[in-house]
């Protein structure tokens, strides 16, 4: 038989089926393979659907096997065809397109479907499941600001869907039948910590509610409960669990309980039919998580290719919630029957940990709020190690004296990536044998961290400890003086509470610094401590020491602040007088609706400022430059909004502040855009009945039309949206990164999600830090009267008389 090419038909083009085929191909390609998939997509990472919904990844980014993988392996792919019948006698499968396909070996990887609870009205428009890319796309079409969404089901999937919808701007309520969220993974205490965290994010949680009906006239308008309460809803997601798809197995005459029954070699009751994934039941358990499915696939690949030997003996169930900032991990049997619980909790920190120990061995773990030790516990659960000697350190290991120790303590066989099943030993082998030095190379070689991504930092740690030439992926360091990325530096300054540039350079750098890192660090310190840092003028560019713009001949230009470009005859007279008095060689109207006095000597700056009696226009710094305005409703016959007042108010709220790069703004009263708001860093564009707030525009070296951040009705809402973006840019952009590069790099979706659509607490935090910074700022030109150093503006006068 060995030379005859057998026909292998795979029903199901999901993660379990395709991963098993990948394993089969590793053995020996003695098969002619056909894969049927009822979805129209190539194999994608289903567990990352929530991150597509949340906008963290695009649909393309979760593709696991692109089309050319199928082609390269000569696999016949039948997408969009649902297999509706199996004839085990004739050895054929029938598709819903009428096609009949002969097999020698059949692999059922049919997965599972969303369970439909007994609720009336599930067929109404606006009711969705959350299982597939198509479900996700439909949800994305409906989700948006102000949409009321109800998620039925407070399990892993329901909670991830809820968070995804919320970051899209929906008002979300999670309704759960049981009294505990994720009750299959969490005990009541753990569940209550989780509920608190969801509520903190701004997601309402209703527990112990039995849903009876989706009400509405054709489309969903509300959700009704047994107790008579009705909740308004424009969008309903049903995530009440999954059921294995076993219809084909019935038709094939296989033994089926809850799932398709398989033995330890992954064989079914028919010698030519095999099954893998969520549709199978092994030793009485159906798995709905990815790691067991991949383990099963490896065993089945051996069996199916005539290399029968390896056995599947079940998987310790482990689950991680993939919601940023809500860390939840659960594994094993955490019930306290016949086990000793070991607990820690801190309400204020929102941390709850429980381990269950039986006969000196770990049998279960629940972690909420801090999952950093989950790999250690998984390792203990899998190995069944005797922990008697470490009993005092179960929850709090003695601190590691060096960074590599945590890695060194892990056994070679410890699983690092639970999704794909990659051990520490396999990673080390890839580093040594394939010359892997970066995370992306590691992903390519071993597929580690291509699943849920929660092991990414652990993979990095191993690379750092083992790889001879470890390189951080795409992380540019600020400069050679302080070799850290700007992200890391911001984190370092915050966590180490560093307040001066010199301190940072001495502890984390070469002690001296240069013209690249010093201004960047100065900015970061000012931003992070909201102005409450140790300002060091020697670390600032000359413009920020004397608050004027240095010119090619060493003189300076002076641009007073004229908010919104609106001035007065008195101001203009003072400006003219100053120009006369100091023999200003050029007086120039700028493109920013300001007046520039060029050619002022450094020592004259304080006198010029005093004579002008106007605040600094910050035309010399990486800071708030100006807001251009049009005449809006006051004079213009087309104006729809009072753009002049709005622009002046915006300028008042932001002026005097430092930013990663210069920030130029504009406010226009109608879409004719006379002050060019759509090519500014922040623009307010008035329209009938409201404002569009646009960000990330440019009309400099490159031209970029600003992206729409949000459309709002009132001027106050427009200003608040601008404030959220402004502070977000200050906190997250790299130094010298203009808003147009920043918005381009992050994507406007992410920017929206983390500003205007962010949870209330996040938005309040941004606004609060902006206000603190603003309160600590002042008009730089006041230093003309009280310089920070007596020689700030004047040259030294030699003590002894010298010929000059």
């Amino acid at each position: 038989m060995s030379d005859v090419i057998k026909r292998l038909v795979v029903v199901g083009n999901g993660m379990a089926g395709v991963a098993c085929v990948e394993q089969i191909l590793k053995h020996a390609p003695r098969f002619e393979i056909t894969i049927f998939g009822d979805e129209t997509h190539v194999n994608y990472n289903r567990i990352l659907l929530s991150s597509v919904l949340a906008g963290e990844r695009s649909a393309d980014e979760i593709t696991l096997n692109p089309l050319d993988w199928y082609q390269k392996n000569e696999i016949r792919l039948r997408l969009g065809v649902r297999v509706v019948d199996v004839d085990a006698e004739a050895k054929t499968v029938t598709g819903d397109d009428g096609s009949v396909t002969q097999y020698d070996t059949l692999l059922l990887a049919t997965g599972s479907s969303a369970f439909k609870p007994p609720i009336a009205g599930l067929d109404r428009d606006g009711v969705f499941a959350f299982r597939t890319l198509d479900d996700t796309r439909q949800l994305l079409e409906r989700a948006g600001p102000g949409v009321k969404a109800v998620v039925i089901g407070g399990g892993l999937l329901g909670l991830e869907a809820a968070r995804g919808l919320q970051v899209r701007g929906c008002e979300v309520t999670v309704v759960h039948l049981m009294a505990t969220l994720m009750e299959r993974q969490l005990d009541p205490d753990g569940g209550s910590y989780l509920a608190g965290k969801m509520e903190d994010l701004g997601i309402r949680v209703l527990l112990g509610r039995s849903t009876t009906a989706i009400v509405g006239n054709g489309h969903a308008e509300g959700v009704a409960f047994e107790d008579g309460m009705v909740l308004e809803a424009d969008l309903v997601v049903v995530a009440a669990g999954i059921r294995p798809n076993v219809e084909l197995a019935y038709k094939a005459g296989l033994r089926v309980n809850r799932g398709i029954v398989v033995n330890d070699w992954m064989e079914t009751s028919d010698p030519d039919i095999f099954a893998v994934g969520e549709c199978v039941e092994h030793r009485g358990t159906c798995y709905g998580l990815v790691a067991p499915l991949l383990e099963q696939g490896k065993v089945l690949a051996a069996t199916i290719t005539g290399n029968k030997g390896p056995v599947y003996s079940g998987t310790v169930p482990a689950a991680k919630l993939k919601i940023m900032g809500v860390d939840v991990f659960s594994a094993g049997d955490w019930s306290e029957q016949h086990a000793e619980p070991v607990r820690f909790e801190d309400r204020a920190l929102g941390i709850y940990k429980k381990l269950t120990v039986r006969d000196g061995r770990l049998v279960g773990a629940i972690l909420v709020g801090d999952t950093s030790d989950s790999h250690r516990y998984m390792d203990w659960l899998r190995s069944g190690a005797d922990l008697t000697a470490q009993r005092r350190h179960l929850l709090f290991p003695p601190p590691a004296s060096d960074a590599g120790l945590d890695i060194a303590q892990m056994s070679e066989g410890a699983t690092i990536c639970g999704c794909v099943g990659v051990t520490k030993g396999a990673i080390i082998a890839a580093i040594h044998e394939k010359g892997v030095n970066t995370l992306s190379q590691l992903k390519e070689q071993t597929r580690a961290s291509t699943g849920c991504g929660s092991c990414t930092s652990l993979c990095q740690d191993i690379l750092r400890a083992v790889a001879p030439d470890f390189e951080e992926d795409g992380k540019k360091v600020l400069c050679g003086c302080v070799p850290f990325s700007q992200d890391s530096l911001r984190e370092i300054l915050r966590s180490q509470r560093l307040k001066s540039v010199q301190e940072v350079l001495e502890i984390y750098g070469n002690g001296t610094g240069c013209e690249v890192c010093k201004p960047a660090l100065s900015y970061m310190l000012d931003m992070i401590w909201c102005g409450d840092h140790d300002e060091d003028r020697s670390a600032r560019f000359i413009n920020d020491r004397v608050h004027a713009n240095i010119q090619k001949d060493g003189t300076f230009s002076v641009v007073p602040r004229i908010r919104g470009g609106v001035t007065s005859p008195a101001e203009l007279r003072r400006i003219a007088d100053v120009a006369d008095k100091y023999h200003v060689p050029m007086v120039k109207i700028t493109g920013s609706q300001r007046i520039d006095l060029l050619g002022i000597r450094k020592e004259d700056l304080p006198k010029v400022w005093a004579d002008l009696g106007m605040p600094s226009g910050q035309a010399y710094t990486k800071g708030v430059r100006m807001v251009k305005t049009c005449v809006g409703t006051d004079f213009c016959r087309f104006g729809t909004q009072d753009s002049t007042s709005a622009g002046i108010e915006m300028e008042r709220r932001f002026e005097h502040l430092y930013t990663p790069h210069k920030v130029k703004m504009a406010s226009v009263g109608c879409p004719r855009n006379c002050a060019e708001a759509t090519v500014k860093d922040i623009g307010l564009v008035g329209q009938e009945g409201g404002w569009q707030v646009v960000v990330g525009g440019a009309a400099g070296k490159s031209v970029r039309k600003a992206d729409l951040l949000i459309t709002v009705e009132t001027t106050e809402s427009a200003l608040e949206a601008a404030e959220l973006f402004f502070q977000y840019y200050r906190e997250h952009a790299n130094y010298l990164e203009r808003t147009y590069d920043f918005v381009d790099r992050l994507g406007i979706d992410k920017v929206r999600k983390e500003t205007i659509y962010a949870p209330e607490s996040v938005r309040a935090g941004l606004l609060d830090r902006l206000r603190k910074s603003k309160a600590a700022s002042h008009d730089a030109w006041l230093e003309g009267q009280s310089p920070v150093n007596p020689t700030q503006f004047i040259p030294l006068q030699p003590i002894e008389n010298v010929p000059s």
Partner: protein
Amino acid sequence: MPSGVERRWIRIARSENIPPREGRTALINGKEIAIFNLGDRFLAVDNRCPHQSGPLCDGIVAGDAVVCPLHAWKVNLETGTVLRPVNQNECIRTYATRVDGGVVSIEA
């Protein structure tokens, strides 16, 4: 240095008038001389960058070098040589300094 001109020590300023890691100028013999406080010592050079005469006293100090504020040429304050761009032959004049009783003097 040009021959025929006698050098002598000139008392310039109290040291606190030149903040750490900053430069200041003094006009001596018709020339602007930039004096830098490196924290542990003072260094003095002609105030004009060899590139386009930018005021070096206004530059950011990077170790024992200064970076010109106009086009970021980097000049070594000990030797007067140009460190960036590389392979420049231009050099600026340096002056000896000393601190005596809290007063900075230069030899010019």
